[in-house]
């Protein structure tokens, strides 16, 4: 008797890394198992990569060197290929990777320690890479990804079909060259769905020349007079792009969040060493979702359209 049970897992651990420090891990697993009732034989690979994201600064004509910790979490040795990719944010807010050299790509400034790795079982290494913008480089943000790909492909057979199974991890790198910096502006406000809850949303435009990410927190007062803290989604907003950022309620305890509108929100939102004050009133969402106007950049979540802010009532 033979019983087949196959599993494939791709998952991540951790969240956003501290801009420079912090130990946040990304884990990718491609595990294939073939088990019989009396024994289970596991083979494949999985690696822990730390950190999952770099945000560094470098001056033109200088070189900055960084280190990725790669832990090969497996009971047998494994091989990896390491290479760079360009990436951008797609219309749905997801990252889209490209092996082709994109226009104005800064990957030619990047050098890797090596292109191939062989790691012992459960071995950890420090993999170095460096960024060397030329002396005449203009202030801008150099963005690329370092791809770490397991080469130990396992051929799985299910019936008459066979599949190659493997996986790779992309480590995002943001390198500020010169004095590039983000400049975020809140252009629209409205409401939308986030995990089943209608929450306030902001449309944020980046008119700077480096990516920005809203931080900090603001305080809201809902129709029942409850005071609720909100934190903005920590999503990157690339230069020249607009993005819808939800304000996520942070309620003490494990109580389910149910906001009642109208809702007023006040406080400072921060990015880097900059901040902006907001003082907004969010009305009750309409029962029927209206289509998103084409003039408004696409929102990532369902909900009524964001409305332009009246000058003088938003940013302080």
């Amino acid at each position, binding site marked *: 008797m033979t019983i087949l049970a196959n599993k494939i897992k791709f998952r991540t651990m951790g969240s956003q890394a501290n801009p420079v420090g912090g130990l946040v891990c990304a884990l990718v697993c491609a595990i294939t198992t073939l088990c019989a009732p009396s024994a*289970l034989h*596991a083979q494949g690979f999985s690696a822990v990569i730390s950190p999952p994201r770099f945000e560094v600064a470098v001056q033109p004509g200088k070189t900055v060197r960084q280190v990725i*910790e790669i832990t090969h979490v497996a009971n*047998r040795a494994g091989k990896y290929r390491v290479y760079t990719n360009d990436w951008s944010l797609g219309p749905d807010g997801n990252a889209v990777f490209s*092996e082709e050299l994109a226009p104005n790509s800064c990957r030619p400034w990047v050098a890797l320690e090596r292109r191939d790795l062989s790691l012992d079982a459960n071995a950890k290494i420090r993999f170095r890479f460096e960024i060397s913008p030329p002396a005449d480089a203009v202030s801008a943000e150099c963005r690329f990804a370092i791809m770490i*790909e397991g080469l130990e492909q396992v051929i799985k057979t299910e019936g008459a079909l066979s599949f190659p199974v493997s996986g790779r991890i992309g480590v995002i790198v943001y390198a500020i060259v010169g004095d590039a910096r983000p400049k975020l502006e809140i252009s629209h406000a409205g409401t939308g769905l986030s995990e089943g809850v209608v929450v306030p949303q902001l449309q944020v435009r980046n008119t700077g020349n480096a990516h920005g990410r809203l931080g900090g927190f603001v305080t809201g007062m809902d129709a029942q007079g409850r005071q609720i803290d909100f934190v903005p989604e920590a999503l990157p907003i690339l230069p020249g792009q607009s993005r819808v950022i939800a304000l996520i309620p942070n309620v003490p305890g494990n109580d389910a969040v149910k906001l009642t509108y109208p809702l007023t929100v006040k406080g400072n939102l921060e990015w880097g060493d900059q901040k902006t004050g907001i003082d907004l009133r969010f009305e009750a969402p309409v029962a029927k979702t209206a289509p998103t106007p084409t003039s408004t950049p696409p929102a990532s979540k369902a909900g009524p359209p964001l409305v332009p802010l009246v000058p003088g009532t938003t940013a302080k």
Partner: protein
Amino acid sequence: MLLAAIASAAVTPLRAQQNAASSAILPNSTQAAAERRPYEDRVMEGVPPQEEVDLAVAEYNPQGWPRGISLQLTRNLQTFQNASGTAGFTRTDTQGIQIDAFVEAPNFGAVSLNLLALGGRNVTGLTSWSLRQTGLPFDGGWSADNALGITNLLVPDLARKNSRLALPATQVLGGSTIWRNEGSNALVIGASVGEPGRFEGFPQSRFVGLGGQVDSLFAQATEGEWTAAAAVAQGSNILPEVAPIAGGGVSNAATRVSPRGLYVGIGQNELATGASWQASAIGSQTSGVNATGIWADAIWRDGGHNHQVSIFRFTQGLTWIDRPLAADLQGGGYRYDYHSLRWDVSANIESFASVSGDSPSGWYGSTSVRRLITAGLSTGGGFAARDFGARSASGFAYLQWQNPLGISRVQLDAASTQGGPSSQTASFDHSVYAENGMSLTTSLGLERLQPAASAIDTQRRRENAVIVGLNGRALLDGGLYLLGSLRARDVRGAGVDSGTTLAANVGIDWQFSRDWSLGASLYENRGVLVDTIAVQSPLIVPEIIRARPNDRGVFLTLRYGSHAGSPSAPLGGLPGSGSGGIEGSVFLDSNGNGLRDGNESGAANVLVTLDGKFSTRTNAFGGFEFPSVVSGQHTLSVLQDDLPLPWSVDTDQKITAPISTRDTTHIDIGAKRMN
């Protein structure tokens, strides 16, 4: 569904569900795409080629049960002076071996062995060991954990839910067993016996027996929201501990006793609201002194607001076998906590009175607040006071902020006892943003102490000290870890302990092959180590603790670790589940009596299915086998089409197969001739 997952992984375009645009988990690119890649990355200059890994040598052995062994050889060289600094130096040379091994045997749980043997010059040879078996499955949902060697005097969990009023679990050299039947209605029964003792030694602590014997027996039952527990324990010819001494150590009385103890408790968890309450009672008899104690507490929450109230009454001489408990005290307390994004607030107030009237009454209160001002800026503070024999108070305030260099924190601390010592400290701590794999924290402090009057310092002369601290670690190339810390305290003033105090250590850890690593560390303590105690407990008087270590040492460790095997799960269960086997046959029941008679032949190549999920085929003699099936009731079915005509099995008849743990069930399935 699984098939779909595999196919999806193979064909998904290069796009990741990656909201934060941090690391992305992506499907593999195809070989063809790799060949088309137009850009080849530059390689850093001056980087030596990586040493090739011998994939054949590094192969993991997945065969057999999961098993592992870790072996440590240690050698510790230490030189130290006695606490007063009056005697000469003593040198010790301790050699040790530590073995930790485990094996997970299906149906017998995980068995582990821990062994530590130490000996050497100026060292008392000692061996500490324990042999444990955990998760031993039985039928009916029962499982057992057994231990021999160093274990604990067992008490029910309910008696340890309140951290302030918890029954101690004394370490013993003996044996223990716990039987569990877990579920919504759970029952746990445990018993233990052994010689009480405690762990001593640095850096490897070993068990030191104190003689005598202690026994305990407990049971805890849970039904729905309700839990009840009871425990009995007794000691025979043991040395009881006296009350904890300042600084956290313990000592033992000189007279041996044979105490007895009884515990009963009941509690309710309101699952819907998260509220709970419990009440416990304890009785003890030591050296003819009978004592009792009762305590109860209730916890409820309101959003982010958490409340707890407690009441208690302990008569004089209360103990739990060898450990003293709070005695001659009665009173109550209230605790409040609130946690939100911006605020962390806690407050606690307790009131005490003597049961006998022979001791003073008093109270203790504490509060602390943390306020997040912006994402990178927070502040907070706290205050605690007690009035129980002596009045004491302490407080602190801090400001913490992120800056381009890291995270910085300024803190002020002050503590004072009426007629006793007082201290004030200002400190600046900074955690440096460091490269991945590195960390560095620094500390600078100014301290002012005024000790209590003593025989050697009747004038209570003040000490002014400067404290500097460093702590860091670095992961270097070649699997080498470097870590170290330094704390220096320099006293200038009229105090009795002027001079410089140094506490430093540095170490490396080198993984030089897959299975082997080497560790080495050096440490040195010199001068007078001073620790100031703030008001942290209603019963402990804040004071200035001084230790005068003058010691240094080198610790060397050679480690070997290896593991092999793979976990196995029985059919229908998880790894570790109790299981048994099914064997039997499908036969042609010529006479229809339901039994396989000697002249009745088996039906070959018939598909037999277990629980509608797992299948096998009969062999040439009609035999089939499911060698590992999770314990419990199962059903078998036979594919009619595989039976030779005109034979068939009654499909309406459910073939049940009860499986017992570590047993094999035999089932013969008779096919009948169709009319």
